[in-house]
């Protein structure tokens, strides 16, 4: 495939890996924050290519994984409301709440539909004026602009049977929470690519200035990730801590102004938002501004709104922060599997545990557990 295969060249990868190996032998722990990078790392077997002193920690950047049980329960309760067509992205369908999932609620009679974009949900609302259509919005600043633009469009077209159950989250507060964790053992970050196309590289400044850690924004092809790792390792060897941009073909320093404006117009930060595995983080979630209250599913529907604690056996928090490895969790691969996930990291294919379970058991888990 043109413009894609070029970024997946095995020979260049081997050369890059050699360069990295020559730069240093010291053990280095890097976190890729974004679930998309985790997916790439496992899909292409990047950990097999990297020298053994470089260890990747898979961070909290999978939006499906960090959505708390209580919010899933709320979504299911809205989906079960008579007359509601409930819409969301495909991989949200299987995420279990405290009792059931949207996929199971669908089997029990709720009208739950998978969409590819919030605009599809708005289209369904226009086609079904007698029904109430709710879109479960989730994701970082990556997906939030499309939700914002959809809401602006809905307001312009005066669609009155459409609302959004907003679970959008922000990357910077999550990064801060990880950096503030007392048991942190990270040497640098592979910064998210898609999020950065929206917010730019500027907001990451504090990672280098306040915490002294290098961060390199990276693209999603395997060579992108490998090159980003090389750039971070070089900073570490040269004792620098800077914000660098590997994904220059898509990411600008100031981000995407129009997308940011749309975000500001529609959303404002919540005082607190609960993250699965990480707990409550101040000003890390987005909610609809009062001007858009008519489209706010949390205003339109009464939900249980309960905070449901993660199961005790679950060690997702430690895994997300890189303190523990997936296979060090007692329930990994036995009680907690992709079919019956207990914790958030096993839920989506981008979760650290699911990724290990699906792709990584063969080499890393087996060899390192020796």
């Amino acid at each position: 495939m043109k413009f894609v295969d070029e970024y997946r060249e095995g020979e260049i990868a081997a050369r890059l890996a050699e360069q990295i190996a020559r730069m240093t032998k010291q053990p280095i722990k890097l976190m890729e924050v974004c679930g998309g990078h985790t997916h790439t790392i496992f899909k292409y077997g990047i950990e097999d290519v990297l020298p053994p002193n470089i260890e990747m920690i898979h961070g909290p950047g999978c939006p499906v994984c960090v959505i708390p049980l209580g919010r899933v329960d709320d979504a299911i309760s809205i989906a079960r409301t008579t007359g509601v067509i409930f819409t969301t992205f495909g991989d949200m369908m299987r995420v279990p709440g405290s009792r059931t999932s949207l996929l199971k609620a669908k089997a029990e009679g709720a009208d739950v539909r998978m969409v590819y974009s919030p605009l599809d949900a708005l289209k369904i609302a226009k086609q079904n004026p007698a029904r109430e259509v709710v879109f479960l919005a989730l994701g970082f600043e990556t997906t939030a602009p499309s939700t914002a633009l959809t809401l602006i469009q809905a307001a312009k077209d005066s669609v009155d049977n459409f609302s959004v159950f907003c679970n959008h989250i922000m990357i910077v507060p999550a990064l801060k929470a990880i950096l503030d964790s007392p048991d942190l053992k990270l040497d640098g970050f592979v910064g998210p690519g898609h999020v950065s196309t929206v917010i730019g590289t500027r907001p990451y400044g504090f990672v280098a200035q306040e915490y002294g850690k290098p961060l390199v924004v990276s693209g999603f092809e395997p060579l992108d990730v490998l090159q980003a790792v090389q750039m971070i390792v070089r900073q570490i060897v040269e004792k620098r801590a800077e914000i660098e941009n590997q994904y220059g073909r898509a990411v600008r320093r100031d981000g995407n102004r129009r997308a940011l404006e749309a975000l500001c117009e529609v959303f404002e930060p919540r005082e607190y938002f609960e993250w699965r595995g990480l707990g409550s983080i101040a000003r890390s979630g987005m909610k609809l501004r009062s001007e858009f209250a008519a489209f706010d599913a949390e205003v339109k529907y009464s939900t249980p709104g309960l905070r449901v604690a993660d199961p005790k056996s679950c060690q997702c928090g430690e895994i997300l922060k890189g303190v523990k490895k997936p296979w060090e969790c007692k329930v990994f691969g036995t009680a907690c599997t992709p079919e019956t996930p207990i914790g958030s990291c096993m839920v989506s294919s981008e979760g650290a545990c699911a990724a290990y379970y699906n792709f990584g058991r063969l080499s890393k888990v087996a060899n390192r557990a020796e």
Partner: protein
Amino acid sequence: MSSQFTPSSLFERVERVRRRKPRIKDDFITLSHGSGGKAMHELIEGLFLEYFSNPLLDPLEDQAVFEIANGQPAARLAFTTDSYVVTPIFFPGGDIGRLAVCGTINDLAMSGARPLYLSVSFILEEGFPITDLKRILESMRAAAVEAGVMIVTGDTKVVQKGSADKIFINTSGIGLIEYPDKISVGRAQTGDKVIVSGTIGDHGTTIMIARGELELETEIETDAAPLNSLVAEMLDEAARLDTAGAIHCLRDPTRGGVATTLNDIALSSDVCLHIYENRLPIREEVKGACEILGLDPLYVANEGKLVALVAPEVAEAVVQRMRMHPSGREACIIGEAKVEPRGIVALKTAFGGTRIVDLLVGEQLPRIC
């Protein structure tokens, strides 16, 4: 990497759980139960087998094989059934009728059988246009002629509007096995080569695009085709080389794709299948569509392809023979069976890494970002 592989206690723990007898834990049927992945295994092995278990059914092959010993010598027959509920019913390169005939023929052919007779049952929704039905019947007739089988019995039911989606078709088939050795999902042996008969993921991608939810335009067509004559050529080649038993497994990688089929073989035969990403034949359009959707072509359905495990000494000759057949022009070897780690499909990526290709839990769902 595989050569240094040493199973650890943790790995064994995970594998033990993976091989545990599946139990059905759900209270309701969800779409996952129909997707060919782990949820479907739970339904079949945890529920259906509990009620129907018998020596012919228990191997869970795509067809039952048995002998009718009334005459001399005894005749070995293959018997199978399948239902078709695809949406949309017409799509580029085929329709539900062609699928219904080819699918059952292929399930018979994968036991090495020569398909003979088919039954056809229709469940029609009130209001279904006769012109559409005619189109479907015509394509069923054509597929049956192409494969040299007769449709010899059938049934029709019409249900209230809304009780079925337009048209559902069930076909059953009987075939005669003349090949002396058992071809089975459990017969793969260490050293066997893994062959696919052509490009993978064409059918599933065609259907996804034909549903129109994506507004993509491509020229991909379904690969739906009867494979009995291709199988006959393969068996003949093995016999010609005086290695009649060299073809160990044959499977058509329909729902769940090549990945699911390879997992079935690896688990049933207790071998490790090593496959190489850069040898997988995938059309550019299919790669592109899957890239956009975040899907993996290895898990996308095929309706006119087969996967074979063949003894290494004849594999290359079998592939050459397959390439002379219209349905096997792009046949190639994509990997081989090794000893460890047992029950696993391992993919060597073009990038230089290795990963496990596991069974999916349910349907492949598009990723959010």
